[in-house]
């Protein structure tokens, strides 16, 4: 009975209810869209980092991170079937690929530049890093193309690399002896990170192992996982499987700045959502207060025919809740439609700024967010309604009935 009366009252002052419902609709819609787009940008960047370079998890020899600057190759892992079998046995491990990371000097015969080199296994790299060639302009490295290389855009320009230009990579090998081998450029890495563009070189694992004297040896394994929400759990399981000789790090540990940016992004988003909702809820409180004042005599009648104070309070809270639920659900519905359109269109192209191209962002609405936003709007409306509802409930029937 209270619900029916509340529902009718919501549609009684149509213009005012429309404004209140509209405010909540807009608040919820903007919060959800903003959340989806900001999360989408964040998740796309994270996904891109994980799937193109870092992987979800990396395994190194214990001590590697502490001493890699002084002895980058001293902490290597044996590229052994035993280790790979152990990795495969861990639940949630989807794929892995061996790599060697090292530094060297890239020369074109007349000029040279320091290079940060990543040696990849063309046979397995795509399974662990499906976007490894995302910014590649040229031909992917292949297993049988042992001397092929990809060179960062700036580095490529600095060395004036062209087809047929001789290219040589010089590096200090495992035993401390310098070695140099010829390379053949196959493509340019047009990545979004300018620092990478100036230094990055990708070669095949076989080339690097030959150059560095690291036959069947690698500096790391890069691991992809199926369920990214079980990142820490999977890293711990890998650590247990491989034992204390190996150290296991997640992408959050390897790229703390990205993790921190994502946390900051979520905090800012939460703050914005809070502001949106607070504005909408002030609207609810204001509207309801006006309603109480306008319906004073009616409240007197309700009290006269036997309504208790708590029933009167509940009536006004219900009215606020119905308005909030209506506005919030409409906002949710429209937000879901807009996001579905965006997803069906293959995401949204986002500019990287200053001529660094675009990346495709897929709007991402975490499953908890709609519940949280709609729930907050409803709960907030109920809280906003408390004061006007109590004002209504505390009226003395005799005074309420004598109001004009």
């Amino acid at each position, binding site marked *: 009975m209270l619900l029916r009366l509340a529902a009718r009252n919501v549609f009684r002052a149509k213009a005012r209810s429309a404004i209140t419902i509209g405010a909540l609709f807009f608040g919820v819609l903007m919060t959800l869209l903003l959340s989806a787009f900001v999360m989408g940008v964040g998740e796309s960047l994270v996904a891109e980092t994980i799937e193109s370079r870092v992987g979800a998890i990396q395994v190194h020899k214990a001590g590697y991170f502490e001493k890699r600057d002084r002895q980058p190759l001293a902490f290597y892992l044996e590229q052994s079937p035993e280790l790979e079998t152990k990795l495969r046995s861990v639940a949630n491990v989807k794929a892995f690929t061996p790599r060697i990371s090292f530094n060297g000097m890239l020369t074109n015969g007349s000029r040279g530049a320091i290079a940060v080199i990543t040696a990849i296994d063309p046979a397995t790299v795509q399974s662990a890093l499906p976007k490894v060639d995302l910014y590649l302009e040229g031909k992917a490295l292949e297993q049988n193309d042992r001397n092929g290389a990809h060179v960062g855009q700036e580095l490529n320009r600095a060395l004036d690399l062209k087809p047929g230009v001789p290219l040589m990579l010089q590096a200090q090998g495992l035993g401390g002896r310098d070695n140099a081998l010829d390379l053949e450029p196959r493509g340019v890495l047009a990545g979004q990170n300018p620092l990478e563009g100036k230094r990055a070189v990708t070669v095949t694992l076989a080339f690097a192992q030959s150059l560095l004297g690291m036959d069947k040896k690698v500096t790391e394994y890069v691991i992809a996982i199926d369920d990214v929400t079980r990142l820490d759990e999977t890293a711990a399981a890998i650590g247990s499987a491989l034992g204390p000789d190996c150290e296991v790090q997640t992408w959050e540990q390897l790229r703390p700045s990205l993790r921190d940016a994502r946390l900051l992004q979520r905090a800012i988003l939460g703050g914005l959502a809070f502001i949106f909702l607070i504005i909408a809820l002030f609207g609810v409180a204001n509207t309801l207060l006006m309603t109480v004042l306008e319906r004073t005599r009616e409240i007197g009648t309700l009290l006269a025919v036997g309504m208790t104070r708590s*029933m009167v309070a509940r009536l006004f809270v219900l009215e606020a809740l119905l308005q909030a639920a209506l506005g919030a659900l409409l906002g949710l519905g429209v937000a879901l439609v807009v996001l579905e359109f965006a997803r069906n269109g293959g995401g949204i192209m986002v500019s990287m700024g200053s001529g660094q191209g675009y990346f495709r962002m897929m709007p991402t609405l975490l499953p908890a967010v709609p519940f949280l936003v709609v729930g907050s709007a409803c709960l907030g409306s109920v809280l906003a309604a408390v004061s006007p509802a109590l004002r209504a409930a505390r009226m003395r029937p005799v005074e309420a009935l004598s109001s004009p």
Partner: protein
Amino acid sequence: MALISLKGITKSYQLGRTSVPALRGVELDVEAGEFTVVMGPSGSGKTTLLNIIGLLDRADAGSFKLDGEELAGRDFNDMAALRNRKIGFIFQSFNLIPVLDVRENIEFPCLLRKEDRTALRKRVELLAEEVGLTSVLKHRPDELSGGQRQRVAIARALVTQPEIVLADEPTANLDSGTSEQILQLMERLNASRGVTFLFSTHDPRIMKRARRVVLMADGKLVDGTAAAKAEVQGVSGLDHS
């Protein structure tokens, strides 16, 4: 035993720093089935008296018994339940709930106490027939005439089968023809259902019909019948018999 028994009822209102007495030791007994009018000049305290009898307001002092039950000192929810169970109200401005139709307005007090809907529906239909509202049960108050609205208010007041119906100037917003019909209806309901009616009014037609007139002046009851009759005659020029 009187249905309503008031002993030494006092009530004052605070106007700024001044306390204005509205009732000064009112003593009144109303028997079940009476059709009684409370009359008096503006400010005499008749509305305050009806508000206290209707449990819409509290007396500062004195004893108020309804059907032998002392009501002084009851809490708000108790008073709400008593209003719902034992008292019906008819207001000058009808005071219907605008978002409910006629049937829902009549049912409303019974729904507050969660009465069985099937039995209630039947009772509402009978009552609507009795007060002449059958054809407009689905109408909203703003689709009704003043007379029809007051009939709805009467039906709402009676649907809970109360012991007393309090009517504050029930004909003040009605034209004379409609007032006459409403009065006849209330008289008929008083006779057929035995419901006690207590009015506050200036309407000489109600005074003429009342079986008892209670006269108030300066927050006190003026001795009963003789003064009241004289007042009625003075106001209306009609004989009161």
